[in-house]
């Protein structure tokens, strides 16, 4: 049986990585809540964030500056993707918008991954750390990058929550989540609100990529597992709920760390699937299911 210190270390590691998972899930969830778009390219946008951080941090900028620039870059990437490709979904001009949305976002994910391979190569890369070394306290060894990633994710999710709660765009998003038709009737621009949600979700994904990049080596397919985790998080937390995504991310990180640490370590994905099944069985709408219409 592992010692109390070891179990504590698994818990801390799980929560820290869960915080960054939450950042991934919050973007996906916001987007679905506001525009009903399930973005299958969210993982590759995460990968773009990791690559952008790597190239900026190893060429002309310091890692910290690169980290700060990744967020507006993600916003710009999201805008560039949304306007030409996803407006037909929110414009209501398609007979089968959901089919289009699934096909176009999957195609986009494949195209981005192949684009990374063609332009950057398929080699594994290691981005520089934000803060080198580990923090050692109470017998625990925690990489400083994990702590920075968690704090950064918490700040961004907190900012998102403030925006949703206290700003005019937040009110628009909540209105769109509660009653899209009613929101349009009172003059809310559906396209604009969906674009902002997509761009913000993309910014959060690129930020998550940048936070995790120094911890996980990067390669073109690094977004594949990220998107799987992203969807698992919104299933666990409840579709369309930012707070649900936060709880889902933290829960997933914790379950994965404790499962691999205390039980069989080679079943990380199985623990994730088991958690999803349990949630679907006992709380079918997710942990924050009741608030699914409230963002």
């Amino acid at each position: 049986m592992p010692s109390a210190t070891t179990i504590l270390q698994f818990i801390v590691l799980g929560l820290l990585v869960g915080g960054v998972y939450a950042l991934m899930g919050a973007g996906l969830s916001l987007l679905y809540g506001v525009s009903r778009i399930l973005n299958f390219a969210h993982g590759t946008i995460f990968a773009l964030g990791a690559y952008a951080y790597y190239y900026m941090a190893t060429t002309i900028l310091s890692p910290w500056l690169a980290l700060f620039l990744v967020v507006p870059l993600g916003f710009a990437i999201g805008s560039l993707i949304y306007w030409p490709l996803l407006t037909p979904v929110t414009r209501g001009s398609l007979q089968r918008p959901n089919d289009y949305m699934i096909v176009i976002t999957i195609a986009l994910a494949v195209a981005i991954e192949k684009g990374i391979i063609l332009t950057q190569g398929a080699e594994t890369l290691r981005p520089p750390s934000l803060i080198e070394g580990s923090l050692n306290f109470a017998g625990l060894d925690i990489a400083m990058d994990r702590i920075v990633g968690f704090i950064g994710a918490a700040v961004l999710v907190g900012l998102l929550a403030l925006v949703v709660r206290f700003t005019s765009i937040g009110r628009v998003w909540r209105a769109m989540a509660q009653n899209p038709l009613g929101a349009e009737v009172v003059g809310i621009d559906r396209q604009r609100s969906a674009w902002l949600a997509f761009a913000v979700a993309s910014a959060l994904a690129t930020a998550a990529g940048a936070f995790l990049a120094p911890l996980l080596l990067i390669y073109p397919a690094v977004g594949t597992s990220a998107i799987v985790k992203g969807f698992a998080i919104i299933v666990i937390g409840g579709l369309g709920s930012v707070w649900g995504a936060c709880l889902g991310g933290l829960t997933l990180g914790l379950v994965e760390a404790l499962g691999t640490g205390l039980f069989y370590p080679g079943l990380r994905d199985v623990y994730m699937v088991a958690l999803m099944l349990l949630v679907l069985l006992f709380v079918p709408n997710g942990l924050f299911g009741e608030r699914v219409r409230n963002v």
Partner: protein
Amino acid sequence: MTGRKSLRRVQILGFAAMLTVGYAVPCAFAKDVLRVGALLPLSAPGDVETGKKLLRTIELFAEEWNKNASFRYEVKIVATDTQDKPQQAATAAERLITQDGVHAIVGAHASSATLAALPVVRRYGVPLVNASSWADEVTSLGVPSVFRVGPWNSRVADELARWITEAKITSIGILAEDTDYGLGFISAFKDAAGTQSYKGSIVTQSFEANATDVTPQLIRLRDANPRPQVVFVSSVLPARALAIVQAREVGLTPQTEIVAGWNFPEQKNFWDLVKVAGRGIKYANFSCPKVEPTTVGAEFNKLWESRTAFGPDQRVYMWWDSMLAIAHAAEQAKSVKPEALVAALAAIDVPGTVSRVKFESGRGVRFHQRTEIPVCVLKLENVGDTADKAVQVWP
């Protein structure tokens, strides 16, 4: 009129003669083609870095071989991407045989990919020469047309077990990917340790092939009682670098030594990936500083260094030898028919880069297995050290 007809007849005959000569002369000098299919990881999630290097190796072999006018066959390479995935490898092997009409196959790289291709080559009887898949099953399954020039898990495990026994190491950890290669190594090492009467502890941890974090496994190794003195990392996936980096993060190293997967520390991006965490890394190798290179090996080294920007590594040697085996087999058989090539490969005995290339006909893992392969343990003392600075730790 008659004269004009005669002239026309002469013109036609002359034209026909020109055509005949034009066709026959090149045919008299044209070589028959030996088409060799290659199963390689050329895109993610496969080990692309290695895949590109191996493709360069066999292309270089074809260039050099085809320069020699005395050979009957011209070697042509048909490369295909497996992504190191089993299903992809099986499909690629089928396509190479049925659509590209290859006479022999080299590869695959990952054990799981090679094992998936075996039923295909068994069905068509096409020879497959493997160079870099370690799973014992590649040869122990006894597929008549399958040969291996490279090492195998239980052989490497035997040598490593001898090393730890002689070095009086009493606690071992193994961190392995959950593939035929990784799990096969755990099993082979436990067997080998038993054979060597190793009395110490062996703690094993595995991780999923797509793992992006192995800290839980490393923490369990760190907190094992007794703590491992040495941890073998058995992986060809991106996680092999992650394991070294995260071992330092969780405080497993430097107190515990890491023995990395075979040629990984010799790859050009090794230090970029692991940085200071790689200091003092050990690894098993088949290019041993204390073993004199063969004549073929020395010539190959010169050629490789003159044509590429980086030094050769073990996989490159083995893939070169797999091409040597196939090309010489075709020359000796004077045929590229599968059955003739298989018979010639079974009897082949030619000099290779690290030893002679010849295959045993024994049972089990030694069936169609090249066995004369030197094994040693090397160490890179300092950050940035390249293979030529490696210190031979054992034997």
